[in-house]
């Protein structure tokens, strides 16, 4: 077990000394996950709200599809995105393969169903009496929509955190679409996989600690926001 302990010491050393390779992977991860979570929240919250709020024909099958897509395997998404972005693929001209935006596309596909599904659940579980309350106070349609969205914020936030966690920790898409290129598309998770294969536990543990720290930071911020209510 000594190698694990040594790994921890080495991890602190790498982080405190500002090791460029470590920080490159951290920066790539933060950048690509910010793109993907931003896109999936922008698209997913309105879509999830509509899916949960309105009754329409085909709602149930659509819900089943969204729920199924919440469990999409990352390697499968990686494979599909690779197929689309490769030179022979329909989006090959954009030159997005082995780039951070390419990974972000894949991660958006990963996060979007989670945001849609959990937002829809949050809105569906919103107290139906709340609609009467909001309308009885004189809200117009737009105010009713926005107030309902605000009232389901805690559930939507939980969905966003779940999606962010999935994006931050995935390996399949980053590896297949990004190619794990040092200084360019190497993310925390692909770096951990590589360094572990090389027997470099220190760097792996260092990057793992950073992942934990980011997750901790996000959750503390969310708890703070919730407490402010």
């Amino acid at each position, binding site marked *: 077990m000594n190698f694990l302990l040594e790994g921890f010491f080495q991890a602190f050393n790498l982080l405190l000394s500002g090791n460029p390779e470590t920080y490159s992977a951290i920066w790539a991860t933060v950048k690509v996950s910010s793109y993907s979570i931003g896109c999936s929240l922008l698209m997913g919250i309105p879509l999830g709200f509509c899916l949960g709020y309105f009754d329409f024909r085909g709602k149930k099958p659509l819900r089943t599809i969204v729920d199924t897509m919440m469990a999409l395997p990352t390697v499968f998404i990686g494979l599909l995105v690779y197929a689309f972005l490769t030179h022979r693929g329909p989006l090959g001209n954009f030159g997005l393969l082995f780039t951070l935006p390419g990974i972000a596309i894949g991660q958006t596909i990963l996060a979007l169903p989670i945001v849609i599904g959990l937002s829809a659940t949050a809105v569906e579980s919103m107290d139906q009496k709340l609609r*009467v309350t909001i*309308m*009885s*106070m*004189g809200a117009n349609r737009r105010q009713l929509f926005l107030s309902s969205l605000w009232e389901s914020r805690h559930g939507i936030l939980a969905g966003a955190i779940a999606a962010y966690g999935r994006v931050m920790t995935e390996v399949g898409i980053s590896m297949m679409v990004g190619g794990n290129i040092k200084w360019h598309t190497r993310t925390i998770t692909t770096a951990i996989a590589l360094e572990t294969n090389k027997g470099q536990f220190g760097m792996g543990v260092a990057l793992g600690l950073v992942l934990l720290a980011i997750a901790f930071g996000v959750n503390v911020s969310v708890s703070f926001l919730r407490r402010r209510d």
Partner: protein
Amino acid sequence: MDTPIYEIRSLTHSYAGKTVLAIEHLAVEPASIVGLIGPNGSGKSTLLRLLGLIQRPTQGKIHFNGCLVEPFSDDARFLITLLPQEPSLMKRNVFNNVSYGLKLRGNGRGVADRVNEALSLVGLTGKDFARRPWYALSGGEAQRVALAARLALKPKVLLLDEPTASVDAASAQLIKEASLRARQELGTTLMVASHDWQWLYEICDEIIHLFKGRIFGTGRETIIFGPWQKLGTKKWGKILSDRQQLCVPEPPDKEAAAVIDVLSVNEDGSAPADEGIVLSGTVSRLSLERKTGQLFATILVGDLPFTVRLTPQQTREHTIFPGKTLSIRYRLDQIKWS
């Protein structure tokens, strides 16, 4: 006569194809207090939701101040407010709950004063409650905050659906007083659905009795629900808990409701004035109808309450008080079925 604040004609509302409300005509005078009474499922809450422009009726139109209105109507949405039976507070603190409607109206100035004023109307202080989150309120406090949120809007119409049903006596008293102050100080039209008949008869200018979704008299009728049983050849009725027989003509179906008009009351043991069915019961409640000044007695026959309008002569002749035993008389040929 003023234009009615509400006028509805030929209105029906259905849920899943089942008609739950069918009102031929209803007009409500401005600044009046209208009580809605009726058993559970009679359509009181549905009528209030339609008048509160929360739902659109399946058929028929609602006129408010002479204008045709529907949910989200700009002519009416800032003037009408409904306090539902189980109001839901928004996930905000008390101040933001009470000020929500004011902010929707763009009333930026003086919001804090109006919130404090509304809270004090329902017996809460801004100092103690304004910053309290929605989850830190008792049921009675939440109901009062919900009412304060409506009163802060100074509405033209305040619709109250069972406002005191699930609160303690002290909260109920505060809610009643605050509602009446809105009418006294602002000329607000009040429509109140409640099972507290005594309160309604004290405060209301008009009582509407809803039964199976239809307007059914003034609520002073005695309605006895089925099931009915055969008591002999061509004889139908019920055996009451005190073994008396409540006789009725043959019902249209076993579950039908009988509307019984009590013709007279007599001192127990005295001979009835003429033919009819006579039953003995105990006075359980006396109530005064404010508008007409008439006294009503609720007489328990077995477990069934019969409502009897007391004439001044009857009031003078019999010293009537709760607990006194009286005989009531009704005629079979005057029973109606619903």
